[in-house]
């Protein structure tokens, strides 16, 4: 009879310390000699992970009220602008926010400094109201003084991502790193066979409410990420060959560690935040076992020319080729380099595995699955606005 396990059965095994947990790389090796049915029988949970720069990240912070109180209508944290339209003393600091005068220190650095317990200068202005008479405040905050600080990232953990090259004669500075002229290098992101959404391409186990590893602590998938797209072309293994699904994630920033949340500055691009995410996939049946068995050579992605407007596609390669150090695109051999950290991703997958084995981390059934058949709209420019 075909294997079918429930979330509760697997959690029962986790509590008893009997669950069999492998990382996605380990299960891919196992799949070389085992059938999906055998894997579904032997393995309960597979851990996946990624550690890459994810620009669509940020933190919600509540400062608490001063005496006399102020309705903060313009907010700066170490000089970095934070959102002022959230009641009196709530804010959202986006990872990519920055003061144009100091472009190398941005929201991601503020977030990392908060995590590290450092003091941050808060300066805010308000017009003064009957209930919030104060017009200006300048003080120091840190992780101990604020009421809440919550990481809320609207778009993380992209399911696959294009390889970047540059066909022009000029160096291009991008979020995919420094791209040398004349396609003399190619950069790639994602942790390949270890990447969360590449191990569950149809999102049969990952949905709203999935408990995850986020920045060093437990967090949750709270929504499909922005630009969630399930309409990208797929290869014969069911893998979308470009950036497709995404996750919105949330967690308690006070519990996180800068080992798994790292601010970054990209030359002539701007600030971003490396985010460490680990997602456990319960092996409920042979179908899911087959998905988590995916190997780098089966995961393909599109090579795009970041030097040209619209980043046109130039070809398709797989992650085994990318990791070999060289790919061939249109007959030309190009040196490759990663831009997300596989060594950190492996560390996260291992930490998650050990926490599950220790009974400290249980898997959760999504309270709602993600939508299907979604596609992306581009921004149309309408002449004359709404006149």
């Amino acid at each position, binding site marked *: 009879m075909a294997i079918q396990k429930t979330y509760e059965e697997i959690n029962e095994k986790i509590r008893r310390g009997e669950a069999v947990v492998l990382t996605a790389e380990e299960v891919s090796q196992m799949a070389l000699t085992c059938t999906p049915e055998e894997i579904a029988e032997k393995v309960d949970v597979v851990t996946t992970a990624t550690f890459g720069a994810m620009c669509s990240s940020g933190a919600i912070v509540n400062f608490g009220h001063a005496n006399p109180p102020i309705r903060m209508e313009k907010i700066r944290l170490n000089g970095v602008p934070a959102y002022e339209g959230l009641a009196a003393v709530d804010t959202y600091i986006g990872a990519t926010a920055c003061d144009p005068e100091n472009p190398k220190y941005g929201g991601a650095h503020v977030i990392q400094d908060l995590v590290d317990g450092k003091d941050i200068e808060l300066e805010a202005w308000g017009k003064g109201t009957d209930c919030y008479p104060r017009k200006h405040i300048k003080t120091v905050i840190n992780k101990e003084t604020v009421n809440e600080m919550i990481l809320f990232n609207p778009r993380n953990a992209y399911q696959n991502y294009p390889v970047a090259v540059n066909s022009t004669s000029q160096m291009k500075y991008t979020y995919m790193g420094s791209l040398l002229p004349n396609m003399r290098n190619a950069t790639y992101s994602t942790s390949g066979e270890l990447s969360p959404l590449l191990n569950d391409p149809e999102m049969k186990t990952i949905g709203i409410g999935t408990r995850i590893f986020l920045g060093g602590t437990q967090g949750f998938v709270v929504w499909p990420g922005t630009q969630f797209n399930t309409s990208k072309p797929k290869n014969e293994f069911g893998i979308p060959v470009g950036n497709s699904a995404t996750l919105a994630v949330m967690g308690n920033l006070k519990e996180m560690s800068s080992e798994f949340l790292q601010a970054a500055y990209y030359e002539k691009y701007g600030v971003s935040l490396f985010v460490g995410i680990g997602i456990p996939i319960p092996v409920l049946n042979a179908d899911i076992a087959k998905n988590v068995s995916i190997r780098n050579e089966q995961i393909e992605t599109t090579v795009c020319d970041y030097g040209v407007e619209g980043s046109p596609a130039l070809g398709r390669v797989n992650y085994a080729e990318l990791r070999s150090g060289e790919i061939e695109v249109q007959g030309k051999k190009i040196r490759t380099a990663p831009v997300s*950290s596989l060594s950190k991703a492996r560390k996260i997958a291992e930490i998650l595995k050990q926490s599950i084995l220790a009974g400290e981390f249980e898997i959760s059934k999504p309270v709602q699955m993600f939508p299907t058949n979604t596609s992306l709209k581009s921004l149309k420019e309408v002449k004359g606005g709404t006149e």
Partner: protein
Amino acid sequence: MQKKRYVLKFPPQSGDQPFSYHLVKDFDIRINILRAEVWPGKTGSLVLELEGTTTNLKNGIAYLQENQVSCEPLNKKITWDNARCISCGNCTAVCFAGALQMDPEKWELQFDPEKCIVCELCVPACPLNLFKIDFRE
């Protein structure tokens, strides 16, 4: 025979002297110029790979130093904050000399200063700003 990379710095008054000629002719040192910045009347910096016998290298370097040309091993001029490195790989994308490479098993960054040609492309390429190269100062 030994092969090693050095950074040479010239004071303004030494800019017009044929040091490399003397290294070759008098000390039988094979030189490979990897990088040069010479500003007449000001200062100059050279990155050289020197190849020769231990004695000749020692004497050649002593000759340079006698003439107020500083000569320091290249690896002392580059610092990489290894402890903070996340091994993202961004620097390896621009390192043509192969000094910065990902270990193909552990996927951790490996830095071999002996292969560095001081092109300095890694300095802005590192998103954490972990490389410091002291070439000019």
